[in-house]
């Protein structure tokens, strides 16, 4: 676990603590997970099986759910389906030892918002749930995304910083859009591969770093303040303030 690294990571999104419900039956894993989330400044509820979990979910309002797929009494996917049918819209991250693309699709179809295969790095999980938690802040219909003086126009697919236009390749635009949508939160390399390239495997060469550093060259070069930051041991983050 990279807990010490993370808690000392700069600009970690502790300024908006979330209430998170963890439904996980593996006690040890759950204890570490809850500890890590609490140290990152979040409020955490824990349930050890599907029934208790569903009860807690219906009882109190949570910002994000972390639900294991294989649970005693009521399995994870059923919990999600029931929650959705009860009108709970908060994002769900599914944890599972089943990593096939197939299983992933099943999880997302059941109403999950993201899927993380076990074993996972805590940094990866934290980045994903903070990304999920911040999603609701952005109106998907908003045609413009902003991060400090950087502005993305989603209709014209143009980018300006401080009023100066920046020319980006289509993929670079997608990459930047994803980073800005998750502005203020860490985005991992795997998240970028999955969401920007739609690849669910790990290339052996670290392909993402080169793409990010090229993007950085375009949006940060010649400006005093660096927007695109590398978070050691975790991923990247666009500063929003």
């Amino acid at each position, binding site marked *: 676990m990279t807990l010490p690294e993370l808690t000392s990571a700069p600009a970690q999104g502790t300024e908006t603590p979330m209430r998170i419900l963890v439904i996980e039956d593996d006690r040890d894993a759950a204890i570490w997970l809850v500890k890590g989330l609490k140290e990152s400044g979040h409020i955490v509820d824990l349930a050890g099986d599907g029934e208790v979990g569903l009860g807690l979910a219906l009882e109190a309002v949570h910002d994000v759910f972390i639900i294991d797929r294989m649970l005693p009494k009521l399995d994870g996917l059923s919990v999600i389906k029931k929650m959705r049918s009860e009108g709970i819209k908060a994002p769900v991250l599914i944890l599972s030892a089943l990593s096939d693309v197939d299983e992933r699709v099943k999880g997302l179809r059941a109403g999950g918002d993201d899927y993380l295969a076990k074993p996972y790095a805590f940094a990866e999980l934290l980045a994903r749930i903070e990304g999920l938690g911040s999603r609701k802040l952005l109106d998907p219909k908003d045609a413009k995304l902003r991060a400090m003086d950087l502005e993305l126009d989603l209709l014209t697919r143009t980018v300006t910083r401080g009023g100066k236009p920046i020319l980006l390749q289509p993929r670079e635009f997608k990459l930047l859009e994803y980073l800005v949508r998750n502005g203020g939160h860490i985005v991992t390399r795997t998240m970028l591969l999955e969401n920007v*390239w739609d*690849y669910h495997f*790990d290339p*052996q060469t670290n*392909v993402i770093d*080169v793409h990010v550093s090229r993007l950085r060259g375009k949006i940060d070069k010649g400006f005093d303040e660096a927007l695109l930051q590398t978070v050691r041991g975790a991923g990247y983050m666009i500063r929003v303030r």
Partner: protein
Amino acid sequence: MSVNTKIFRTSTFRLAAIYLLVFALSVAAILGYVYYSTVGLLERQTEETIRAEVKGLADQYRVRGMPGILDVVVRRSIETNGALYSLVGPDGVHIAGNLETMPQVNLADNVWLDFPVIVGKGDSAVEHTAHGYHIELKGEYELLVAHDVQELRQFGDLIRNTLYSALALSLLLGLSGGYLTSRNFLRRVDAITEASHSIMAGDLSRRMPVSGSEDELDRLAGSLNDMLSQIERLMAGMKEVTSNVAHDLKTPLTRMRARIESALRNSSAVEYKSALNQTIDECDGLLQTFNALLSIAQSESGQVRRQLQMLDIHDILIDVAELYEPIADEAGGSLTLEAAPHLTVMGDRQLLAQAMSNLLDNALKYGENEEGKGADISVTAAIDGQDVVITISDQGKGIPEEDRDRVRNRFVRLDESRSKPGNGLGLSLVASVMTLHNGQLHLEGNQPGLRAIMRIPSSTTIPASPSR
């Protein structure tokens, strides 16, 4: 259970019994018809004759009275045509006819009757059966006209006996034939069962017996044997992989253990931290190995095969090349792509992209030219006959010809010094992804360098059956 009782449960025997029943029924029907049209016909003709004579005599009596009938009876009695007549008066006195005693069995009007008659004189006298018709005439006279049917009856018995023996014989033949064929069949099934038991007990090299007659049973045994060979091959592969995995995991685990031990001995916070960080890296490497193994297992499981979709290799290559181009560029090399449009195949996008990505990873790692400058990689894709052919070539050291087959095996790395990162699973995955797509992976020399060729059957407008 003994062979003798088991045999009645075999399907062959049951089939033989059904055939036997049908056969016996048809034999009975044929013989019955023969009986009806021979013995039956003769009986009916005899009765017709008797009936005609009785009618004639009755007419004589009605028209000419007693003298008329007497005349005819006397006259006919002399003829030796086997006919028997008896005219009896009201007091039971024999008036005329060659049958002197009226049988005492039945005296009703208009009846058929069988009765014994004595034929011949003295020592040669024998009893025969006669069949006749008895009527009562006006004035309490009685008339009996009969025929000696001894020979006819004997003929009938003969036919009947023949029929019964024919039936009995065919039943016997059918039964023993069914018994013999099913016993033979059963022996072969038992041999197969016995072979499968010993295979289940662990003797995987054992095979089902094949008689050489190329019948259904042989075909079954043959396909079972093919299946066994396949299983044996897979098991051998699995054994090899398991021992390779164990071996390859031992090395990083040993390193991890040593590092943690040493950190525990030197109790400085900085050392703890650095040891833990290195351990995480090592864990990530292990996870990557596992993920690669899982990807291979997934592409080999055949589960993906059912979900193959129409894909354009052109589009996938553009995506993958775009992902890798900056990396080649940063390393001081280059990546060029020449792909023809519309290269449709039935495929799995993730696995195909992963295969291409693995080949590009290899080209980047091992494709550096002699001055250590980054790899110049050339990717092409085009239609060749029925196939879509993708080549990924570099100008590095290449792979010696004798090693080109070996490198597809899991965990094989030619880089003995292990100076580059990797788990020796890259090409194994490419090979298994190609197998999944009914394609092939070829490795060739590129003078200098290596050319990896992926050949996938192209799917034109009509998608091929995904289950193929």
